[in-house]
């Protein structure tokens, strides 16, 4: 956990760490985008590229005993919360050496030692779970919190509304992070979310809300600081709507016919949280050199992870019926 108070600006160590995490997520996803084309990666995969500042801006505040609950687009949340990057890559390749022994896959990565309670392939599945974890936080009385990541599309799922109301009623420390990347699958948020925005809904459920630029790490980090102060202070839940975009399709293979032709290109130029971060990095006392070194580190880590994952053994067939109560 940070030694700074939740509301103070991040130290340069933390900023470097945040940059490393964002860069790791980016390279992880960019690499997956390439590797998926080899056909070696099973299933379907949703990439987080473009939204890195949200996961990292939120999770940089959290300790190992704080919880997060994630979505189908969960790689970024996992990395931000500290999950082992190689273990994730192995999992996505479906290897015995994966974080979940290859039994979960891209949409079901969890790491309980890191307070990462699981990605979730059911849209809207996570927020109620986060409220439950927040009950545990409250009952322990140790100031820990529970964070629910949810997409703009998931904000139309009844479970998400129920979770917000329940958190307000029980006044438990749940922080709802609504990542508005403009789309749910092939449908735009302006169509699917009937109201003006998502933030207004959360407010109507009775909790404080902030709406932030999700491509600006500093903005997310600052808002999360205030959210955390609120939740840790025993004042109940808090919501953040963070606006960003995804640089790839809904899943790998999506032809994105719903997007204007040059949209992604323009967004990569103007909404890239990594470029944006770098733009003010020196002002904040970080050196270009340090950042470059991180970039190199990260690339090496991803290379290693992929190389190892490709060689790693699949789960033994006996795994088919372990880790589940079975008897017939």
């Amino acid at each position, binding site marked *: 956990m940070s030694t700074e108070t939740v509301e103070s600006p991040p130290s340069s160590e933390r900023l470097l760490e945040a940059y490393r995490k964002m860069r790791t997520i980016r390279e992880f996803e960019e690499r997956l985008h390439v590797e998926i084309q080899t056909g070696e990666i099973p299933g379907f995969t949703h990439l987080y590229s473009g939204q890195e500042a949200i996961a990292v801006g939120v999770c940089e505040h959290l300790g190992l005993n704080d*919880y997060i*609950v994630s979505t189908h687009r969960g790689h970024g949340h996992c990395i931000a919360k500290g999950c082992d990057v190689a273990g994730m890559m192995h999992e996505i390749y479906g290897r015995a050496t*994966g*974080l*979940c*022994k*290859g*039994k*979960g896959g891209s949409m*079901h990565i*969890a*790491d*309980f030692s890191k307070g990462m*309670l*699981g990605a*979730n392939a*059911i849209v809207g*599945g996570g*927020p*109620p*779970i*986060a*409220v*439950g*974890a*927040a*009950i*545990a*936080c*409250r*009952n*322990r009385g140790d100031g820990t919190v*529970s964070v629910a990541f949810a997409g703009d599309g998931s904000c139309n799922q*009844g*479970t998400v509304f*129920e*979770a917000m*109301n*329940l958190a307000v*009623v*029980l006044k438990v420390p749940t922080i709802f992070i609504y990542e508005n990347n403009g789309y749910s699958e092939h449908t735009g948020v302006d169509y699917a979310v009937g109201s003006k925005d998502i933030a207004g809904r959360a407010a109507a459920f009775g909790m404080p809300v902030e709406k932030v630029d999700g491509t600006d790490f500093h903005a997310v980090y600052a808002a999360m600081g205030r959210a955390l102060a609120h939740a840790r202070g025993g004042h109940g839940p808090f919501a953040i709507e963070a606006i960003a975009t995804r640089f790839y399709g809904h899943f790998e293979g999506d032809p994105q016919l719903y997007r204007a032709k040059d949209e992604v290109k323009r967004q990569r130029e103007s909404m890239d949280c990594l470029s944006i971060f770098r733009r003010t990095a020196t002002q904040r006392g970080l050196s270009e050199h340090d950042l470059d070194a991180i970039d190199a580190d990260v690339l090496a880590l991803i290379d290693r992870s992929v190389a190892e994952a490709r060689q790693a053994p699949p789960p033994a067939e006996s795994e088919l019926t*372990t*880790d*589940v*109560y*079975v*008897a*017939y």
Partner: protein
Amino acid sequence: MSQKSMRDAINDALHLEMARNPNIIVLGEDVSGGAGGTSGQREASGGIFGITKGLLPKFGDHRVIDTPISESAIIGAAAGAALAGLRPVAELMFADFVGVSLDQIFNQMAKFRYMFGGRTTCPAVVRLAMGAGMNMGAQHSQTIYPLLTSVPGLKVVVPSNAYDAKGLMLTALRGDDPVMFFEHKALYPRKGEVPDGDYTIPFGEAALVREGEHVTVVAIARMVVFAEKAIDAVEKDGITCDLIDPRTTSPLDLDTILESVENTGRLVIVDESPPRCSVAADIAAQVASQGFRFLKAPIGIVTAPHSPVPFARELERAYVPSPQRIEAAIRKVMQE
């Protein structure tokens, strides 16, 4: 040892284990009741069926949690609390409400341990009041347990009496897997001998309620009571039966059933559910596959009809398998 209703027996188990284990919480609609009311009286309810009575005053509102009408959030919160180290007991009230909460039961709770490679468990108990017999209509009278028995990762408990209910609940509260604990509404007031102290009944161990020679009768929950009546009736004609109460449908104690069928050669299964993909069908299938050589006659299956539960008294009575229908099924397998 004292005479207790099944209602009190389950309540007893909750009291005992909550005192023993501070990680147990109870949540659901009106599990205490009275929150936000004008009388200022909490514990205005103690659960619509009174199963959670007395818990709030003893354990406080951090552990006995009244919720809004949001079953997905209730079950989801139980799932999340379980991942985070608590042992939640969620009351779904009527079993029929799995309709509005199934995802959190069958895609979440049930699958966590497996999907996450065994790196976690999900020790949550969901309590569901089930069954017909009180004219509550099509949406408040279903048995539901077949549906949840079909789901890998869930344990499913279907007690037929107060003694078993207490012992099985204590087991549920100490296990590491999600447990669907079905309580038949018509059994709540039925009394039986129940020890005051601590005891557990293992899952997957059937009770041999009666011993006999000619027919094996397997019956679930309230149907155990009806089967006993049927068995009494045929005994007058010298037909004696093994009566097996599986107590849990998942895990199912198939061995006890197979052993009995090996002796009797005849099997009748009684399930209050509609027939298709029922637990009756499930048991019949397993015996037809693994105990086929023991069978001397077609398997007798007694279930509700394949229709929703009707409201009118006369119709609902005809819907629920009766002692008479069970008796007829026993006589029929004896004739073949």
